């Protein structure tokens, strides 16, 4: 469990999975999360998401988790509690307005939902590298994938050019000198150099694209991802889980009512089954990561 200190980051097993599987997982988990406001379901999802950020980012990531989630949670609870006057159990009055227990509870539950989504998205950032995102957009339309790839190329290029321009200006003795207005003027000058330089350079880029046949009909998209058997198995497990949960969601087994009084759905076979499947779905990537790490450690010790 040593890896929990540093986090697995991009070496995580789930990261090496086919991007389609990744994205299906995130869509499922987030959609189910949004339509399940039963406290048990919410709390479990929250814990799973939290634990997954730790697996990927290490213990130190909890500080950032708190920094992001606490303000959101407090704000949402407070706003709903003080501004929504639904609910039967009155706690007290402010300016003749009813402040109810149910409003607070609903606030907490929606805050929990929101925070969980944020935490899932934080892990999404690590799991979905730029390459994967380019691939997925390319699946929608190859031009989209290409555009994204060009953007990822352009940003560091702009930075590099700006660094060079600033250095050139420094060598004329122009940078960081004079009053605020003069410095502002200098900055606009530098940015204007950057823009005209980049526009000029982009003419050459478009030449290079045309020279290599850009614009011919039926453009294809190249990628280095392979859909392997293990990806198929993973997808199968995930789909089985969701086939159980999604109908239960629609039938309301994963929901509860907060107004006018909190009314939980009593535990039944179906609810328990849905809960089990949901947990299964959420721990799939964690199992994959931990198992991968174990194997790696074993191999390393044998070497």
């Amino acid at each position, binding site marked *: 469990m040593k890896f929990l200190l540093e986090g697995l980051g991009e070496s995580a097993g789930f990261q090496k999975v086919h991007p389609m599987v990744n994205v299906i997982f995130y869509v499922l988990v987030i959609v189910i999360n949004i339509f399940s406001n039963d406290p048990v379901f919410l709390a479990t999802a929250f814990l799973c998401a939290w634990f997954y950020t730790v697996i990927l980012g290490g213990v130190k990531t909890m500080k950032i988790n708190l920094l992001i989630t606490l303000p959101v949670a407090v704000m949402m609870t407070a706003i709903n509690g003080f501004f929504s006057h639904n609910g039967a159990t009155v706690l007290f009055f402010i300016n003749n307005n009813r402040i109810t227990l149910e409003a607070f509870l609903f606030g907490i539950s929606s805050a929990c939902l929101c925070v969980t989504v944020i935490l899932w998205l934080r892990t999404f950032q690590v799991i979905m590298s730029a390459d994967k995102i*380019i691939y997925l957009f390319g699946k929608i339309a190859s031009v989209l994938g290409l555009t994204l790839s*060009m953007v990822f190329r352009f940003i560091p290029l702009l930075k590099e050019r700006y660094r060079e321009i600033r250095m050139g200006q420094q060598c*004329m003795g122009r940078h960081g000198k004079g009053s605020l207005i003069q410095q502002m003027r200098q900055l606009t000058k530098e940015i204007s150099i950057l823009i005209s330089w980049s526009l000029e350079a982009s003419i050459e*880029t478009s030449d*290079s694209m045309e*020279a*290599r046949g850009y614009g011919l009909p039926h453009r294809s998209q190249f990628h280095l991802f392979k859909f392997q058997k293990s990806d198929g198995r993973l997808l199968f497990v995930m789909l089985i889980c969701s086939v159980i949960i999604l109908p239960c969601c629609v039938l309301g087994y994963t929901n509860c009512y907060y107004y006018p009084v909190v009314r939980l759905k009593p535990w039944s076979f179906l609810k328990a089954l849905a809960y089990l499947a949901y947990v299964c779905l959420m721990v799939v990537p964690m199992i994959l990561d931990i198992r991968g790490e174990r194997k790696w450690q074993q191999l390393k010790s044998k070497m």
Partner: protein
Amino acid sequence: MAAIEVKDVSFTYPTAEGQALDHISFGVEEGEFLVVCGKSGCGKSTLLRHMKKKLIPYGMMEGEVCYYGKNVTELEDRVAASEIGFVSQNPDNQIVTDKVWHELAFGLESLGLSNEIIKRRVAEMASFFEIQSWFRKDVVTLSGGQKQLLNLASVMVMQPKVLILDEPTSQLDPIAASEFLKTVYKINQELGTTIIISEHRLEELFTMAGKVLVMDRGKKVALDQPEHIGMKLAKEHNPMFYGLPAISKIYAKTREKGLDPYLVNGQEKPPLTILEGKRWLKQILGDKTYSAPSFTTGEREKKDVVLEVKDVYFSYSKHQEPVLRGLNLSLEKGQLYCLLGGNGVGKSTTLKSICGIVEPQSGHITISGKEMKKKHRNDFFPGSLAMVPQNPQSLFTEITVEDELLEVVLPMKISDEEKVSMVEEMLEKMELSALRENHPYDLSGGEQQRLAIGKILLLKPKILLMDEPTKGLDPFFKRTLAGILKDLTKEGMSILMVSHDVEFCASYADRCAMFFDGEITSEGEAVPFFAGNCFYTTGANRLLRNWFPDAVTWESVVRRLVHE
């Protein structure tokens, strides 16, 4: 049938007065290696662009360019894209995507090939170019030489029959350039691809080329085997002669003066490599040795030291090896000082620390008697110090050449008349008067360089720092640049220049220094400095060092040979 046939092509750009191409005709056979040379602006690029359907410039064109008998403009798009490959100058601007593997696949994606075929072709090319080790890298992490190799590979992956390269090595350092050209040669030899390449640095290309096309002002001056080009141009007293490799120049000039020819099996064969040249000299000079040169190593007249770097140590972070390790350097008034050395040895860091952009961990940098400190760096600018950056574009803000110069003098506290006269003077000095209304980006590389130097000179610095000023310049403008620099040093300006260009430094520098591993390992006046080096010296010196070690420039070699 010729792979490319140019039939009486003339071309005029829409707003230009003269013709960019003037009745040019020639053919390139399949598998041939053709080198196109000439001054910048002589129409080389225009000519090459006419061979690639999508890159033909707008303007008035007469005649036709044929690819295997078919007019290039009538080729099917798919054929035009894949069978004729084009690589241009700038390594950065040609790269489209963010990953090496994606860039390699770009052309094949355009052709709409399936993932399996692309994978196979990309794998083949990556192995051929030995780029497997950086296959999955981000393109930003590559060096300039690697980027240009990637551009070449991503064209080759489309399996072109004709490969056109427009000054592909002008932005590379000599070692990367040499590696690049070797790869081009390998493509020609092992795949039989027809190569058409335009270039300024001809030493290596002359040994690879089947034919050389020399152009001047849009006209074909000569088209011949590389061996015969030198003699031909020398006979015609054509100024293009000065752009040839040193060995060709030496041979042609000395033959003119009546020296014996190089004979192989009883036939004259003008030498192209240093090895052949040495054999030729052995034939005519024999094993005679000549009196060792006497360098006046005696006391030099010491002038004022304007810039002194003493025991400077610098490293970018605590965990990194230092980049500068006890650097010592002193620049005297009116001196042209060249700092030579390979990549990543700390030359640019030296300039940065002199400018106060980075502060050394220990040691002192004194400029005109005052110590440079990062905090007070602005006190030194622009009066005592200024630098011309490697990329002239990083200085241009205005829309005309004239405005560009005016922009510098505008904040100065002098009368308007004086400002205008300063600008006029500078336009005159940099030979830019005719171009005053042009947009800076429409100038050629050499002209941009002149404009950048002009801008910096208006600041009237006492010390001028230059970072690779000869990068991408043709040999003719290098001579002009040398003249400008010489005039400046006569006026009392001191110039410190960082360069890869051995030939330039040997011909024009007052003092040269070799930079290696963070310090200066050898230093001296240009001639004794190069005479003392074995490998890192000019082609002319390598040729003749067994006989006359002090002959460093090709002119001096010719003089000595004729004299003996």
